[in-house]
């Protein structure tokens, strides 16, 4: 499925749109990490918590967590907060 990548993570994907597979959000992020090594840990910590400044939307709705089921036709958007200075 289509995954939109924020600018801060495009050093991994080199483009704004990636494609990955997974029956859950966790599986999708694992697949992204297989394709772009290291990308998952920048978004999800070692306790499987989505990091503080990262939000993930599925079909425009904020994700409930990594266990959220996904369908092949879903669109996933990863958003990073741009706070601070």
């Amino acid at each position, binding site marked *: 499925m289509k995954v939109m990548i924020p600018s801060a993570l495009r050093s991994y994907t080199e483009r704004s749109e990636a494609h990955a597979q997974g029956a859950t959000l966790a599986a999708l992020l694992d697949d992204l990490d297989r394709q772009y090594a290291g990308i998952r840990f920048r978004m999800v910590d070692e306790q499987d918590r989505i990091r503080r*400044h990262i939000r993930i939307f599925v079909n425009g709705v904020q994700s409930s967590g990594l266990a959220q089921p996904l369908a092949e036709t879903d669109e996933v958007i990863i958003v990073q907060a741009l706070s601070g200075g």
Partner: protein
Amino acid sequence: MATSKKPATRKSSAAKPRTIVLVATRKGAWLFHGDAARKTWKADGPHFLGHVISHMVLDPRDGKTLLAAAKTGHLGPTVFRSTNMGKTWKEAKQPPAFTKAHEGEKGRSVDHTFWLTPAHANEPGVWYAGTSPQGLFRSEDGGVNWKPFSTINDDPQYRVWMGTAQDGTPDGPKLHSMLIDPRDPKHLYFGMSGGGVHETLDAGKTWKVMIKGMDVVEGFGFDPAQPTFHDPHCLRMCPANPDRIYQQNHCGIYRIDRPSDTWVRIGKAMPKKVGDIGFPMVVHPRDDNSAWVFPMDGSGVWPRTSPDGKPAVYGTRNAGRTWQRMDAGMPDSQAWWTVKRQAMTADTAATVGLYFGTTSGELWLSRDEGKRWTCIARNLPEIYAVETATL
């Protein structure tokens, strides 16, 4: 007439050693390449513009592996590696990360890797990393893969001493200053800010607390026997004498000479109006009686700026019995500098060069062991760490 042929003079084919200054900042990293005289400097950077770089260190064992501890305000932490002096970088496959907690338990996550230390000369490729929240990690492949080192990260007693995000420094308590005994790779020290100084003789199987003689903040009834209340800011082992360690602590400047287990507050010899509060500690590469500090104001609300707005390095040539003010070349007023604990260092030249970086983005150098200072870069972001490498 017999003639004698004067031997031809040959220019040495060996190039003079050059110093590189590795500058880590809140907004990226820079490499300053010096000439042999350390007079002209060429800036190479920014690397990782916008990333918080807590520390950048070149492996002295191979002279080419460069590690940078990085995060951004928005993404998780990682470690970048270069083996061509920053021309290209690769990310660690497994950056420092705590062990995943069991179901129902709340595990910790690394916010940032704070300190990087190459291990013993006989352990090529081995590095240690200290993190915030406080954790100790080790890589055995030049920084590609990191694992928790020893049991302290999850030890209940150490977790108490480490404190929480509410303890320690504003952006989190930090494990730092991993010191490696050059005579024995199993003999290590580290500091916890806060949480005291710790030593192992068996490669991390067991640890011993080393806080005797260290003061705690007065007036709150803190028990000096409790590691929790001790805040070492920076520990440095003398390369010329690994039994001698200097320490800049939240509560003064100390020295210990092993096998003694008692720190001596050598900062009491500092001028009273300057005090002995600060972050960095620097030692001479060959003379264990010589060390330098950068005092900061620890009065009132602890501004931690140069006392009275008059910055100075203070140096000792007799192991802390006396201290000399070394400020020639620095501003003589209205300079409210802060120098962080990793942001001051020395090189290994015959006449040692000293370097420090300020949180206001200035990089300063003394080519003569502190006698005279010159600014070699301005307008950098907030400087977090300064290290040197000799090539």
